C-alpha cells in the first residue's frame, strides 16, 4: 500500500510536467503520493482531493455552477 495524499481526477492521464506542477503547489516530494484517476465526465480541467479538502477546477463543475445560477434566477 503506497501512501497517497493527493488524488487527482483528470480527463487524460497527467503528463510528467503537470505532475511536477502539482507536486510543487502541494509541496510534496514523492511522485507516489499523487494518484491519478481518469474521469471522462469532467469534460476538462482537474478535480483534486487533498486530505479533507476537495478542489473542483473542472469544466463540469463550472457548468454546474452556471446551471445553478440559471435555476436560481429563472
Amino acid at each position, binding site marked *: 500500500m503506497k501512501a497517497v495524499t493527493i488524488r487527482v*481526477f483528470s480527463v487524460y492521464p497527467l503528463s510528467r510536467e*503537470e505532475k511536477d*506542477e*502539482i507536486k510543487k*503547489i*502541494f509541496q510534496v516530494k514523492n511522485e507516489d503520493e499523487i494518484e491519478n484517476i481518469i*474521469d471522462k*465526465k469532467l469534460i476538462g*480541467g*482537474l*478535480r*483534486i*482531493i*487533498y*486530505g*479533507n*479538502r*476537495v*478542489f*473542483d*477546477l473542472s469544466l463540469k*463543475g463550472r457548468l*454546474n455552477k452556471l446551471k*445553478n445560477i440559471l*435555476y436560481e434566477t429563472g
Partner: protein
Amino acid sequence: MRQAKDHFFNILEKTITQEKDENLGLVKEVRDGVVMAIGLKGAEYGEMVEFENRSLGQIIDLTEEQVGIIVLGDYQSIESNQIIRKKNKQLSINVSKDIIGRVIDPLGNPLDGLPNYKKDKDYPLEKIAPSVVYRKPVTVPVETGLLAIDALIPIGRGQRELIIGDRGSGKTSIAIDTVINQKGKNLICIYCAIGQKASKVALLIETLRQHEALDHTVIVVANASDPVALQYLAPYTACAIGEYFMDQGKDALVIYDDLTKHAWAYRQISLILRRPAGREAYPGDIFYLHSRLLERACRLDEKYGGGSLTALPIIETLEGDVSAYIPTNVISITDGQIFLETDLFNAGIRPAINVGISVSRVGGSAQTKAMKQVAAKLKLDLAQYREMSAFAQFESELDEETRRFIQRGARMTQVLVQDLYQPLSLAEEVAIIWAGVNGYLDNIDIKKVNQFKKEFLTYLHTNYQEIIDSINKQKVLNEKIEKSLKDASEKFLSIFQENI
C-alpha cells in the same frame, strides 16, 4: 497551450493558498437514501448540503474518515465522485403566515399545485426546546369538540397528549375532529402525515376543505413513497412551523400522524449508517428522537410572548400491545394518553375511547369552570359503572341502588358517543352532560339516548338560545343558568316522552 496550462495552475495555486472556503466534498458511496462522502472540511452535524443533481442533503453522521448524509430527494441520480457543496447553515424551513392553508413537503415545497408561499423567517428544523424559565403552567383548554375528551381527559394548550390505538380504531378521526372544531378559536393547526398512503392524505385534505378547516391549518406531508429521509424530517418541520406561530404569541397545535412510522424511518436510516441496533432493531437514540421533538411543545410565559405549542402525537399499536418499545417510550414522554380500543369501536362506542385507562396529567387545570362543574359528577358516575358493570348480567338480582348505578353508567356511556366530524360547542357539551348527570336520561331507553341528545340540542337552540350563548360566553354555570337548564330539560323531556 503552454500559456493556458500556466494560467490553470496559477488558479489552482490561488484557490489552495487563499483557502477560499468553498468546502467541497466528494461522493464516495451511495446507499439507500444515504450518501457517504469524503472532504467537506469543517462539516457540522445537521448542516445542509447540495448535490450535483440539486437534491439537498443533511449531514447526520460524522466519523474520522467520512461524512454520512441523508438525501432529501432523488438519490438515484447521484453517482460516486460527484461534487457535494456545503451550504454553511443548519437545515431549516422558511415560514411565513402565508403558509396557512397550504399543503407542503418537509422542505417547504408546495404539494397543492399552487405557487410558492411568501418567505418570511428561517426556522431550523432541529432546535433545543425552551427551558423552564420560558415556560408557564398549562391552563387554557384546547376545545376538541369531543364530549369524552373535553369532559374526562381535558387537553390544555401547550400539553402533549398521546393518541394511541390499533389501526382502524379512529385515531386520525379524533385529531381531525379537533382540527375542524378550531374554526374561529385562535388555534393554528399543523397536521403532519408521516409515511401514510397518499390516498388517505388526499381524503383527509378533502374532508378538511369540506368543513372549511383549511383556513387555519397547515398540512405537512411525507408519503410512504417519499424517501425515508423526508419521513424522518417531517415532524421536525411541522414543529418548526408551530414554533414560528408560537414565537408570535399565537397558539398552535401540531398533530404527528404517526410516530410509529417515524420511528421506522429513523430505524432504516440508522441501520443503513451501520449504527448498532438495540431492542426491536431500533438504534440507541430512538428515545431521544421523540423526546426532543415532544419537549418542544410548551406554553410560553407572557414575558416571552405567551404563545403555545400543543402536540398530539399518534401511535399505532399491534393487537393493543402498549408494552412494545415505541408505545412505552412515547407514553412516558407525553403528559397523558387517549387509549382507543377496537372492541369499543366495534360495539358502536365511537370515539372508541377507553375512559378508564386514558388520562391527562394536566387535567382539571385546563378545563373551563362550567365543564369542571358537570364533569366531576360524570367521572364519578362512570367510575361506579365500571366497578359494577361486571354484575350487569345479573341485573334482576341486584339491589335498587346498584341497578341505578348501572343504568346511569350505561346511559352516560351512550351520551359520550358522537358522530364523525360533528364537534360540539362548549355549551352544547355542558348542557348534555348536565342533563345526564341530573338524571333526565334515566328513564329513556338506551337505544334512544342518541336521539334524545340530538333533539335536545335542536330544542335548546330553537327555544333557549340564550342559555347556550351565556354558557359559551361566561364559561361558568351559575344558579340562573342552571335554573333555566332545568326548566328546559323538564319541558323537553315531557315532549320527548309524549312522542315515543
